[in-house]
């Protein structure tokens, strides 16, 4: 387990929990780092674009990798502009692409995301695109130079957990990049399930931000993610399908 590292764009991480953006507070970031063990924290550039009073950059502890996102972008061009702005703000080379043409469900636009990924990867960014779990789009993202692929589990705010489970599994099976499950993970048990399936990491925010006891929920996520990872690495056991296995072998009639 000690050698089990998450590698994104050549950078190594021990933790497989990434704090999403959206609902920030000092307390949340503290809990995410201390209790959930987060080493990567997402930062919405639109929120960082603020005056001193609540500068999120000041909240980020040392040694933590910042993952600025492009939320607010409605197309590839806007995402590219926000990513460049993030670099100017001193946020480093990582960028999470979020492009939404839908303010109701906040579903990502895969086509525009592929375009932005290609442009930013060529500019030396470590690109982590948020996407709707579609295998063809995921392959295009790989070809465009993505460093990971981040499919959504369910629409933001839906509390539906792993609604896209079957399609995320296909990405895990077919894509040779870390698959990081993002959006819709509302409970530690859902995070655990995604990790058992072979997801490389989990991104969450609201589930922690709205918990009654932040540090306790953060540590629950840490344990759930670690448990799921261990289960995946150990090879999850045989799950009996409905009914028992036939006691007489079905192939008993074969004579040689």
């Amino acid at each position: 387990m000690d050698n089990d590292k998450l590698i994104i764009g050549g950078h190594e991480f021990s933790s497989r929990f990434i704090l999403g953006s959206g609902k920030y507070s000092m307390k949340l970031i503290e809990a995410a780092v201390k209790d959930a063990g987060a080493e990567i924290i997402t930062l919405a550039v639109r929120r960082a674009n603020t005056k001193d009073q609540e500068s999120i950059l000041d909240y980020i502890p040392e040694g933590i990798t910042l993952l600025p996102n492009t939320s607010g972008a409605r197309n590839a061009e806007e995402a590219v502009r926000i990513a460049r702005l993030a670099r100017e703000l001193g946020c480093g080379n990582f960028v999470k692409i979020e492009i939404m043409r839908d303010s109701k469900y906040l579903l990502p636009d895969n086509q525009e995301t592929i375009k932005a990924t290609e442009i930013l990867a060529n500019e030396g960014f470590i690109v982590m695109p948020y996407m709707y779990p579609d295998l063809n789009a995921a392959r295009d993202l790989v070809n465009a130079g993505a460093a990971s692929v981040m499919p959504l589990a369910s629409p933001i705010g839906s509390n539906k957990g792993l609604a896209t489970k079957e399609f995320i599994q296909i990405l895990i099976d077919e894509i040779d990049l870390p698959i990081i499950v993002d959006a819709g993970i509302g409970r530690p048990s859902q995070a655990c399930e995604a990790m058992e399936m072979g997801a490389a990491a989990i991104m969450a925010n609201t589930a922690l931000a709205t918990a009654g006891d932040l540090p306790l929920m953060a540590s629950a996520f840490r344990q759930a993610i670690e448990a799921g990872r261990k289960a995946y690495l150990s090879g999850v056991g045989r799950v009996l399908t409905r009914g028992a296995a036939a006691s007489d072998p079905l192939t008993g009639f074969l004579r040689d």
Partner: protein
Amino acid sequence: MENSFYVDSERLSKEALAKKHLLETDPSSRKNHMEYLPGMEIIESVVREKVMSHMNSYDYSVYTAADVRAALEHDTCSIEDFKALLSPAAEPFLEAMAEKARFETSKHFGNTVYLFTPLYIANYCENYCVYCGFNCYNDIKRMKLSMEQIEKEMKVIADSGMEEILILTGESRGQSNVEYIGEACKLARKYFRMVGLEIYPVNTDEYRYLHECGADYVTVFQETYDADKYETLHLLGHKRVWPYRFDAQERALRGGMRGVSFSALLGLSDFRKDALASALHVYFLQRKYPHAEMALSCPRLRPIINNDKINPLDVHERQLCQVLCAYRIFLPWVGITVSSRESAEFRNGIVKIAATKVSAGVSTGIGDHESKYTGKESGEPEGDEQFEIDDNRSLDKMYKDITDEGLQPVLNDYLYV
């Protein structure tokens, strides 16, 4: 009970008074409120028909407690469910509605509350809207700020820490033309991260120009969606043209604005029907423009200078709360703004349930931020206010109160791209 809106000023000339009285008493003296005036852009849109057909057929007396219970149990709130939640049958379920609304708010917005402040740059108005303090017959101190004065006001506001500003004018193209407002937007971009506009409705190309000047959000209050009632309240001026106002948000989106905001002024007409129409206006426009950001406000009538009796009639705090909860359950992704027309107690309570944005450090007067923020009299003239506000809290106080409620005040979550 009705509000009595008509007030005669002693300073009006005999001719002006005669015209005012004619407008008030003889409907045939008033222009057709459904007819566009020259220069007003007409856009093809079916949104208006859809909204009006729902509103006109809405009979809220038919809904029962069982309909309300069913609406509260559904995962997705349908239009029928929403109608039940707005009906009198839902009044006994207010606590259950508030619980569901709070749950939806926290799923979509977490515990954040956005803060902004309005800046009125002019109070000249060419309309006679009988309930409004800025109406052209009301005897108030008129004022239009120069660019230097606007910049001074903006500096004072920006120094308080505010990052989002809503620029307002009275509805007078003559006194406050689009270029004047555009220049104010350019100034605002220097001092604020986000610039919104609440001005008279304009054409698509003018919205595009204002967007290029730095504005990205447009608020237009329809006041009432009941066109017949609207006709009796907006007796004179461009604002009288009801359909042009209805399509303002759509023109703003076509002009490239990121977001638009909607509202009826509760207390003018049947508030349940107006609330239904406001939310459906958002709902149908969102289906047509899925990328757009949308927000709802829920103002109630307030007293104005020279008429302190104006009130929201049957829309008490309980009804207002019911409307806001129903909005949140029906449109969980939509921003909800509650202005300083409401009391500090109401606003502290409602941000925990449904509202996601509140104003702070508010003045609805012209050029008085320095005296209001610093207590220092500038010696310069100030223009009178549009209506009386209730919640006078400064940004600092509001910030602290929101934090004390266990919520997170946010000054900016926006980028102009």
